[in-house]
C-alpha cells in the first residue's frame, strides 16, 4: 500500500472539518445523555461505536431512560435510520466495483453528512471510468466523522458523570430532536406529518410499550403522503412541485 495519503482522502478530511461544529456538540450530548439515562460509560460508548447514528442513539437513550419495551427501542432505532436506505441506494453505483469487505466498511460509516458530501463530489465527477479512487474521498469524510463522534462521546461521558443533576443536561436530548425537527418541516405535507405524529404520540402516551411513538410516526408519515396526494403545497410560491426537495435529515 502506498505510504502517501491519497489526495482524495485528504480532500475528504478537509471537507469534513466544517461539519465538526455541528457534530461535536451532538456527540457530547450523546455521551452525557447516556450516563444520565443510567447507561454505563462503556455501554454509552458502545452505542456510539456499534450504532454510529446520532439521532437514533439519542432516541434509544431517551426510551431506555423511560423504561420503554426493548422491542420498541430497537424498532425506533430502525425507523429513525430508515432514511439511510435512500442514501445506500443512491451511493451504491459508485461502490459497485469495490470488494465486499470494502463495501461493508463504506456502509458502516454511511451518515447523512458523508452521503451528502460524497454524492455532491461524485455526481460532479465527469470521469466515470476511474472508480477505484472513488471511496477515498467518501472514507476521508466518513472516518473523520467517526473518530470525532467517538471522541466526543467519550468526553461527554466523562463530563456528564461530573456535573450535578441540577444542570439538567439530559434535557439536551429533546432539544437536539427539536434542532433536527425544525429544518425537516420544510413544507405543508411535512408540517402535517409532524403535527399529526406529535398529537397521536401524546394521545397514545398511555399505551403499553411506548407504542404511541411508533403509531404516531406511522400515522404521521401517512398524513404527509395523503397531503402530498391532495396537492397541498406551501403558499410561498414554490411552484416547482417539490422543487425545494432538500434532504430534511441532512445536518449542516
Amino acid at each position: 500500500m502506498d505510504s502517501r495519503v491519497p489526495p482524495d482522502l485528504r480532500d475528504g478530511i478537509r471537507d469534513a472539518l466544517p461539519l465538526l461544529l455541528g457534530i461535536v456538540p451532538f456527540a457530547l450530548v450523546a455521551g452525557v445523555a447516556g450516563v444520565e439515562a443510567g447507561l454505563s460509560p462503556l455501554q454509552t460508548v458502545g452505542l456510539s461505536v456499534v450504532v454510529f447514528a446520532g439521532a437514533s442513539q439519542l432516541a434509544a437513550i431517551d426510551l431506555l431512560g423511560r423504561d420503554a419495551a426493548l422491542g420498541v427501542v430497537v424498532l425506533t432505532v430502525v425507523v429513525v435510520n430508515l432514511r439511510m436506505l435512500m442514501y445506500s441506494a443512491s451511493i451504491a453505483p459508485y461502490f459497485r466495483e469495490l470488494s465486499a469487505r470494502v463495501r461493508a466498511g463504506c456502509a458502516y460509516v454511511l451518515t447523512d453528512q458523508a452521503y451528502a458530501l460524497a454524492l455532491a463530489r461524485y455526481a460532479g465527477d465527469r470521469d466515470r471510468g476511474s472508480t477505484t479512487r472513488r471511496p477515498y474521498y467518501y472514507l476521508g469524510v466518513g472516518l473523520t466523522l467517526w473518530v470525532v463522534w467517538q471522541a466526543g462521546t467519550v468526553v461527554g461521558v466523562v463530563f456528564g458523570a461530573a456535573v450535578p443533576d441540577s444542570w439538567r443536561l439530559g434535557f439536551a436530548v429533546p432539544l437536539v430532536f427539536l434542532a433536527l425537527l425544525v429544518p425537516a418541516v420544510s413544507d405543508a405535507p411535512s408540517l402535517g406529518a409532524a403535527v399529526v405524529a406529535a398529537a397521536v404520540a401524546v394521545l397514545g402516551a398511555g399505551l403499553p410499550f411506548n407504542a404511541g411513538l411508533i403509531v404516531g410516526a406511522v400515522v404521521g408519515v401517512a398524513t404527509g403522503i395523503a397531503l402530498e396526494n391532495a396537492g397541498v403545497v406551501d403558499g410561498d410560491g414554490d411552484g416547482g412541485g417539490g422543487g425545494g426537495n432538500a434532504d430534511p435529515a441532512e445536518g449542516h
Partner: protein
Amino acid sequence: MATSYGPLSIWAVIVAGGLATFAIRLSFIHLFGRVDEVPPWLERALVYVPAAVLAALVAPDFAPASATVEAALTPELLGGAAAVAAAWRTEDVLWTVAAGMIGLHVARFLL
C-alpha cells in the same frame, strides 16, 4: 429518568439496533445490480419519516400533565419554545441546545 434495565438488556438493544442499522446502510450498497433503486412508494414515504418520527419523539417530553394553563406553562415548555425559535433562525444544533438550556434555567428561576 434512569433506566431500570440490566446490562444484558441494554447490550442486547445496542447490538440489535447496531446490526439493524448496519443492514439498512449495507442494503443497496450490497444488493446493487440485483435491485436498481428504492421502490418509489418507499421513497415517498421516507421523505416524511424524519418529521414524523422526531415530532412523535419530542411531543411527549413537552406535553402538559393536565389541560390547565398553569400545568402547561412548564420550564421545559418554555425552554423548548426558545429552542424552536433558535432552530428556526439558525438551523444549528449548538445554538438550539444552548437556547433551550438557557430558556429552561431562566424559566425555572422565574416560575
